[in-house]
Every structure is written in structure tokens, then in C-alpha cells.
């Protein structure tokens, strides 16, 4: 009997211990999750690239934070000493990127009429009004990753346009000839 009672009490103890350990585990899980959420907050929030429009519309929210921005390098790479300015367009909005010169060395194409610029991903700090650059809305790049290389766009002559131009040239010649004819005939009439 005593043995049974002891066994029951030990079972209760074991149950209580196991429920305690469950609570502990749960606490640990909650703590671990909240820790992970706190620590990995930025990675979660901005793991995906933000758009230029989003950056401008919510500039105060993003100010000073590390963001990912993707787009095409357009125009010129402007070297300024050991740094450089590049302008990157996501297709809707272009934003200035301040970067170390060496990070631009892998960039071979910039977007323009005859060329498609390199498509890059920038990891950097966004500023609503950058203190270093007298209030510019910019991104200071920490790393630049080339996602797609750009290239030269071969321009073929649009034959439709050429044909229209030829027809119109004919019409223009006709009207010039007609005008000259009218002038000559009116002069003859006067004489």
C-alpha cells in the first residue's frame, strides 16, 4: 500500500516536473522567438527590395535604415575621388546611390537610348535628407550585387517609318513643283 502511495506520489511529482519543464520550454520558446524577432527584425522587414516610390513616399520610416534596392544603372557613373555617384532606376523612379569607387568596377553598362544598363541590387543605408550630401535623398551603398548584365541594343531601321518618309517626300516634291509651276504661270500671265 505504502509502495503504491509512494509510486502515486512519485508519478505526481514526475507529472508536475514534466508540466514544469513544459512551461519552461514554452517560456524558452517564447523568449527565443521574441529574441529572434527582435534581432532579425531588419532582415525580415527589408529582406525584399523596396521600390523607389515606396522609399520616397515613406522616407521618414526608412530614414537611416538598411534597405535593399534593385534597378538598372542609368546615365553616367560619376566618379568623385574614391567614391562615385550612380543613378539607379527601378523602372518607375530613379534614386542616387553613393558608393565606393571599387564597388562600381564590375559595372559595364549604363542605361541609355542604345543600351540597357546593368541590373543591380544595392544593400545600403537610406537617407531622407543626407547630412553628408546637403539634404539629398540617397542610398549609401554597402554592397552592390550584379544581377543581370546589360548590353548594347542594336537598332534596326523601322521600315514602316522609312516608307512613310518616302511617301511624304514624294508629296513634298509634288507641292514644291506645283508651287513653282503656279509662280511661273502667274509671271507669264503678268507679262
Amino acid at each position: 500500500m505504502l509502495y503504491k502511495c509512494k509510486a502515486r506520489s512519485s508519478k505526481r511529482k514526475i507529472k508536475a516536473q514534466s508540466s514544469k519543464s513544459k512551461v519552461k520550454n514554452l517560456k524558452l520558446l517564447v523568449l527565443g522567438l521574441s529574441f529572434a524577432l527582435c534581432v532579425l527584425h531588419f532582415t525580415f522587414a527589408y529582406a525584399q527590395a523596396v521600390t523607389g516610390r515606396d522609399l520616397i513616399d515613406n522616407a521618414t520610416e526608412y530614414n537611416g535604415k538598411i534597405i535593399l534596392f534593385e534597378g538598372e544603372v542609368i546615365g553616367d557613373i560619376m566618379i568623385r575621388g574614391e567614391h562615385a555617384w550612380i543613378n539607379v532606376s527601378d523602372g518607375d523612379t530613379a534614386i542616387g546611390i553613393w558608393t565606393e569607387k571599387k564597388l562600381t568596377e564590375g559595372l559595364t553598362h549604363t542605361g541609355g537610348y542604345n543600351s540597357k544598363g546593368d541590373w543591380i541590387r544595392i544593400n545600403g543605408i537610406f537617407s531622407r535628407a543626407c547630412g553628408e550630401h546637403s539634404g539629398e535623398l540617397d542610398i549609401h551603398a554597402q554592397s552592390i550585387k550584379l544581377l543581370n548584365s546589360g548590353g548594347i541594343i542594336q537598332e534596326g531601321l523601322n521600315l514602316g517609318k522609312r516608307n512613310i518618309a518616302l511617301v511624304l517626300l514624294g508629296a513634298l516634291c509634288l507641292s514644291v513643283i506645283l508651287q513653282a509651276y503656279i509662280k511661273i504661270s502667274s509671271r507669264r500671265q503678268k507679262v
Partner: protein
Amino acid sequence: MILRPRREDVLSIGYYLGRIIIALGLVMLLPALFALIIGEKNPAMDFLIAVEISLVLGLTLAQICRTDKDLNWMQGMVVVSLSWIVAALLGALPFYLSGHWNSYLDACFDAMSGFATTGLILVQDLDHLSLTHNLWRHLIMFIGGQGIVIVALSFFIRGLSGAFTMYVGEGRDERILPNVIQTSRFIWLVSLVYFILGVVSLGITGMLLGLKPFSAFFQGACIFMAAFDIGGFTPHSQNILYYHSFAFELITVMIMIVGALNFKLHYCLWMGRRTEIFKNIETRGLFISIIVLFVIVGASLGGLQIYPEAAMLFRKGFYQLISAHTGTGFQTIYPAQFFGEWNQLAIIGVIFAMGLGGAVCSTTGAIKMLRLGIIYKALLEDVKRIILPEKAVIMQKYHHIKDMLLDDRQVRSALLITLSYLAIYIFGACAGVYFGYPVLNSLFESTSAAANVGLSCGITNAGMPAALKLIYILQMWAGRLEFMSIFTLIGFFIAAIRGK
């Protein structure tokens, strides 16, 4: 009794309109040649098509309406107002053919914006637009800034004694030299000298900023044309933000201010009368207005700590203010930042700057300083009349190139134009509100369009209602021509319908 326009009126209008269209077609040969030189084949085709259409249309119209008669006042005004519409329609052809504009209306919007030196844009993917089309975008600002008819008068139409009516019709009521043609050529001379100086300084600065030599000088030329003729187009979608340079911004500020001054004042300075700049009612008014408005804008931006440093306040606050006051429309902030970050008082300050404008007989739009000066002097005169004894003889003077006596005719004219501008600003704002935009945003964009400024808070985009695009086109047209020729055109059509 209203008299119906006679056949001769229509013939004269058609004939001179035809000649101006021919002139426009010949000007379009410049970008066509440029395209051929730099090897942009399809843009060359776009311009060849536009040149051919313009020449065929112009030659046909001039031939059908051939006349030896000179233009009278009414005919001249109608020719001017129609010329600007036709120029926008034809100037838009290469734009539309490029495929960078969603519709022909959008292309016409940008063409009118260019000719009227406004600077609002609907172009898509500007960063991939050809150099040739970019050259045309900026060239039409240069042509529009001088005046489309002035271009025709200077280079393509000779011996026209009715030229003065067309000169006045383009919003210029001051002759610098006795002859209008000489005046036009002087304006071109001044512009070309500044063009060379501006392009060299912007080009060299561009190279120092890291642009390649060709790109630096090409963009320098584009930016100069847009800054001197207070247009506001730039070759890139980021506007002046693209260059990330204080020096570049400073040079554009200087060019904008030079462009906002009266060509008559330029003439005085060229003739060595440097004190004129300090005595002239317009330059004084402009200086005072800039200071007062900068105090308002600076205080409201500084109070909010949006730009905590002086350099920031200059590059963002002062730059936008100067751009607005001169009517240029260059931006060193994104359109959404106006209403996203600035407070309403600062925005009101910018709206006032846009609405007031620069000097008469310059390339700026809006009410202009001389008119405000005249209204101010008239107000002073009336106050004096109340205060002083009835028998006192009151004469109000002001200095504009020479000492002038204020007369009622000048005051009436200044008030009429000022009221017309205010009416058109409010009309555009009401239209914006009708289409669902907030009041202040609508007033901002409307004032920008009618005063030919080009600053945008984001309303102007390819997706906005077509009717609003048309209203802005009308505002840009009326604002650039300063109403008189538009009133005459309306009167002409009324007379054609209701006249006997």
C-alpha cells in the same frame, strides 16, 4: 454690331500661318541632321516625317492663302495664337513617333509644355530617350522662350511691317531697338552669347563631376536651354537631382536669374549702364519678393527641422524657391516630397513665387514684377490722394529703364493681365479639385502650368484624366501668350459665327 471676318482676313492669317509652319519645319531639320550625324536612325526618321508633314502643310497653306497684304492688328494676334497651337501639334509628331509617349495628347502636352517653357512632362522612360529627341525637347524651349514668331521673324520672314503686332502677341510689349526685327535679332544675340558661356561652364563642371566630355557638353547645352529660357526640362528623369552637385546647382541658379531679367535690362548692361540693375522697379521687386518669400519658406522648413543645416536649406528650400520665382521648374527634390515633407506654409510660399514670376520682356511667365510694381505705385498714389489736400497735385513715378510717369492706361493694363492670371490659376485649381485632387495640390499644379513654371507635386503624370491634360495645355498656352492674343482669337471666332 460685330463684323464677320472678311475673306482677306482669313487669307492673311492662313498665309502667315503657313509661313510660320514652314519655318518650324525647317527648324526641325536641325535635330534630323543631328540624328544622322550621331547615327540614331529611327529618331532621324521621326524627324524627317515631321519635317515633311510640316513643309507640305505650310507650303499648301501659304499657296492657297497667297496674299501681298500686310497683317493688321487683329490678324497678327490671331496668327500668333494659332501658331502656338499648330507648333505644339506639329512639334509633338516626333515625340509621338518615338513611342515614349502613351498617346498623341501626351506628346502634344509635352510639346506645348516645351514651347511655352513650362517643364511639366508626361514622357515615359525618359532615361532611355534618344539624344535627338532630347535635343528637340530642349530646343523647343529655346525657341518658345524667344518666341516662335520671333524665330520666324528673325530668320524666315523678311520685310513685314505688321511684325510688331505678332511681337506683342507673344507676350512682349517692349521694343529694345526701334525695329522689331532688330529687337528680335538682339534677343537672339544676347541668348547666343549666354548660350556659349553657359554651355562652357556647365560642360566643364559636368566633366569635373565625372561625365564624359560629349555627355557633359550635350547635357550642358540642354540644361542651359532649359534654364535660360526658364523651361525646366532635363535629359534625365531625376531632373537636377541627377547631377548630385552643389556647383552644378549654383550655376543653374545664376542662369535662371539671368533668364528672368528683362532683355531691355540686358541691353542697358551691355551698353555699360550697370546702375540700372539697382534702380529698375522690376529687379528691386524681384529682389524684395525673393527675400520675403525665402523668409517664409525658410522659416517654415527650418521650424520643422526638415533640413536642419544651412546648406540643406539652400539646396532644397532656396533652390526650389528660385526655380519657382523665375518660372524654371528645375527640382532638387522629388515631386512627392513637396506634400510628403514640406508644410503647407512653405508650399504656399512656393505657389506665390510661381504666381508672381520674373521680369517682363524676359523668358519668364506669370504676372511679372513690372505689373506688380505698377499696381503697387497706383495703390500708393490713391493712398496719397486720400491723405493729402484735395488741391495737391499728385504724380507717381517709377523707374524702368528711364523715369516714367504712372498713367491710368498702364495701371488698367497691368490690372487686367494680373486678374486674368489669377482667374486662370483658380480655374485650373477648381478643375483639379473636380477631378478629385486636394485643393492645395490642385492650386500648386495649376499655378505651375499657367505661370509656365513646371514644378510638380505629382498630379501631372501620364495617368491623369485627359480633360485635365487639355486644361493644363490651355493654361500653358494662355499663360505664355499673356491672354491678349487669346482674347483676340476668341473674338475672331465669335465674330465669324455671330457677325454680320
